[in-house]
């Protein structure tokens, strides 16, 4: 009998499938973006504004160097937030608590950064580790609750988000994490971090480009490597795809939950650092909010893949940065909310589109394999008949 898999046929099919896979992978997000632009255009038009003017304002800002730097800086933060959420998502662990984790981590890091003043070479790694440790520990509470008590991580992390606000309220008071002497301003914040804690940045024509973008890149590379090239990553993905199969294959799912939750939290710990070490230099009541939830959206849009999330982070950063130009009177006073609407519709559309595309792709492949096998069989039968 001849080999059932002639190599030539095999390669061509593999190529066709992977080529199609790329198209399928791109189809969903592109569709979602197009759809949400349409919806927002209609919304703007009905409110009596010209949507094309709005898009024009946004695109114009993105072509300017200060706009580009703003977009890149923002996307650095978004990317870290997305990576934190995605790490859990890859094993079907829904860490909704990224929000609380990064805030608590940023608070503690700000405190440590203000109290200690070592050479930068030690100081910065120390702060990174502090942030990851605090974020990881805070997330581990949810992990432990899930493993030992069977509490759904969705519920416990949402609760922990609420608790984090209380923790910050409790610690961020004069005499504890904030300086004793009241400042002139009404808001309370920690002492500024020491000079050696400042992260490097590049001076460009458009302003300071945060050096933290390299940390984000590093996280992306490490993310991809761990997931696709290590035993741990295989176990993690197997658990995400089918927990029952993973258990039967020998994955210690409880241990995996603990580790993944901790890693997800540790990554979450980094989210606040670009802001803390490159911009505000202290943690106060005005510290950036909602990055955790944004990260979830970006991870969804980027399909939890390191490259996809990079594009998604850039898109969201583009929308947020350029959207801030819309309300300015010189630009026509568009409502800023249109950006939030757009982000929301993108996420909803993309979730639906991904599911549709996934099902279609799976079915399509089954059909292809069936057709391919039938053709092979016919060929062998013909050969046998001839012989």
């Amino acid at each position, binding site marked *: 009998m001849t080999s059932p898999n002639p190599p030539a046929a095999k390669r061509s099919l593999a190529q066709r499938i*992977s080529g199609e896979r790329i198209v399928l992978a791109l189809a969903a997000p592109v569709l979602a973006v197009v759809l949400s632009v349409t919806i927002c255009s209609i919304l703007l038009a009905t409110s009596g504004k010209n949507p094309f003017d709005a898009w024009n304002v946004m695109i114009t800002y993105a072509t300017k160097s200060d706009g580009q730097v703003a977009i890149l800086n923002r996307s650095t933060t978004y990317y870290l937030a997305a990576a934190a959420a995605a790490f859990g998502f890859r094993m079907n662990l829904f860490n909704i608590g990224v929000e609380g984790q990064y805030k608590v981590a940023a608070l503690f890091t700000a405190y440590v950064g203000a109290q200690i003043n070592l050479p930068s070479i030690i100081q910065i790694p120390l702060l990174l580790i502090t942030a990851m440790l605090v974020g990881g520990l805070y997330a581990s509470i949810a992990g432990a609750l899930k493993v030992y008590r069977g509490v759904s991580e969705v519920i416990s992390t949402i609760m922990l988000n609420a608790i984090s606000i209380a923790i910050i309220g409790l610690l961020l008071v004069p005499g504890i994490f904030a300086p004793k002497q009241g400042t002139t301003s009404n808001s309370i914040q920690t002492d500024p971090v020491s000079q050696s804690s400042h992260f490097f940045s590049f001076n460009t024509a458009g302003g300071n480009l945060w050096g933290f973008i390299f940390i984000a890149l590093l996280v992306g590379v490490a993310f991809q490597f761990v997931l696709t090239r*290590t035993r741990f990553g295989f176990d993690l993905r197997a658990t995400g795809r089918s927990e*029952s199969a993973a258990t039967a294959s020998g994955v210690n799912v409880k241990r995996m939950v603990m580790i993944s939750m901790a890693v997800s939290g540790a990554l979450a710990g980094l989210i606040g650092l670009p802001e803390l070490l490159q911009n505000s230099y202290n943690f106060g009541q005005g510290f950036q909010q909602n990055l955790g939830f944004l990260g979830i959206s970006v991870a969804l849009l980027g399909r939890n893949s390191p490259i996809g999330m990079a594009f998604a982070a850039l898109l969201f950063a583009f929308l947020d940065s350029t959207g801030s130009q819309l309300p300015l009177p010189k630009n026509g006073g568009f409502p800023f909310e249109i950006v939030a609407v757009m982000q929301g519709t993108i996420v909803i559309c993309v979730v639906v589109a991904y599911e549709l595309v996934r099902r279609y792709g799976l079915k399509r*492949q089954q059909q292809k*394999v069936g057709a391919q*096998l039938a053709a092979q069989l016919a060929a062998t039968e013909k050969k046998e008949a001839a012989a």
Partner: protein
Amino acid sequence: MANHDINLTVRSGTVHALMGENGAGKSTLMKILYGMQKPDEGTIAINGELCEFHTPGDAIARGIGMVHQHFMLADNLTVWENVVLGGEHLYGIGGKAKAKIKEISDQYGLGVRPDALVEDLGVADRQRVEILKVLYRGAKILILDEPTAVLVPQEVDALFDNLRELKSEGVTVIFISHKLHEVLAVADAISVIRRGTTVGDADPKTVTARQLAEMMVGAELPSPESRESTVTTTEMLDVQGLRIAKTDAEGIERVVLDDISLRIHKGEILGIAGVEGNGQAELVEAIMGMLPLDAGTVTLDGKDLSGSLTRARREAGIGYIPEDRHRHGLLLEAPLWENRILGHVTEKPNSSGPLLDPTAARLDTRRIVEEYDVRTPGIEVTAASLSGGNQQKLIIGREMSHQPKLLIAAHPTRGVDVGAQAQIWEHIRVAQRNGLAVLLISADLDELIGLSDTIRVIYRGRLVADADPATVTAEDLGTAMTGAARGHIESEPEAVEHFHEILVEGTEAESDAGPTDTADDPQAGE
């Protein structure tokens, strides 16, 4: 394409059997008849009247009812409540409905008690409730999807009596099965499906089991009939005093496994017979380390594994062919080569140190695809796109690739076409000759008797009986499976002889059990 050129004519008031190996397209055809799937072309006519079904509701309205292989009953409700559920508009939910249930039950001799709780019923009773449910909704055409798969021989006979009763009352029954002697016993007409198309009709009065089988597969048939013994005296697996108790929602302790002790030697296949749900799944999971033990020890090749985790046990040399390959054996959406890694991620060639070795894993997957005749266009396709038989061959190839000392094979040929079945049996036998110990769990008594060296019967979590496959019939084994017989069971020599004749005639002689050229269409969700 799952089905093409299907022509099927069923006369009213008959039992019409639809036969075909697994994956032949029986289920797809039934889904079309029941309105769960729409045909691309072709027509359906009932009593000469063309009809079109968009949903199962349409089919029910035209008097077609379906009894699924897996029962769809709410355990915590009574029979009466289960029957009425979803059909409240027919006879209300009160006394009138109950009276109707009684009436149907008496009319067709189903013997259903409306007030019994479904959770207290056995499998056969549940099946009768399912049938009653369908009749209650006014069905005149009944589709039974492999109704005997879950029954022991005595219950099968009782079901057949029910079917004859239904027939005499004018109900038409379409009976799907691939068990030859059952079909011959009950059917008035037979249609055979192969590779998604009807290949012929047969008259059960004149056709022999062998002719039918050949129509089904279109080739010479293999048989599980065993050969000279390869059992050695070296002990491989030793299980002592295994006990597992689960606490259910009401806080009542249910003992699922009690005092299980068994020994398997090198080169021995130990078969476990039992009606599903009597602790087989838990026994497997206990040996695999997926369930914590309350008492007892598991020793493999002299090494105590009682406290080890699943991964350590796999590394120690346990191969595992799970009962439900979709849930426990495969990552359906992952490519074949990743599925080859599953379960052996810590072993060569899949990884070196903490790092994966995708190149070596891919290479080895190609080898498995070749050696185990996995029909696939490549190793980058997802496992879901393969047919059940090919998925199973991949799993077996994977498990055999790590020189297991013990193979746990739970229903290794379930949902697998006849061609792949023969190959799977052959792989198990070859490994057995090389000294593999096998724990075989199967609902197919012919397979169990054909392959095993020793048979133990499990009933309500205990090993209650044992038998020598050479001196036992499926009937007597079936009796023991219901808990009616204990200790060592041995059948009448004449009965054994007769049984073996049927077995050989039904599934043909051994020698030529080489790979047969049966194509199997990939089917999702098989």
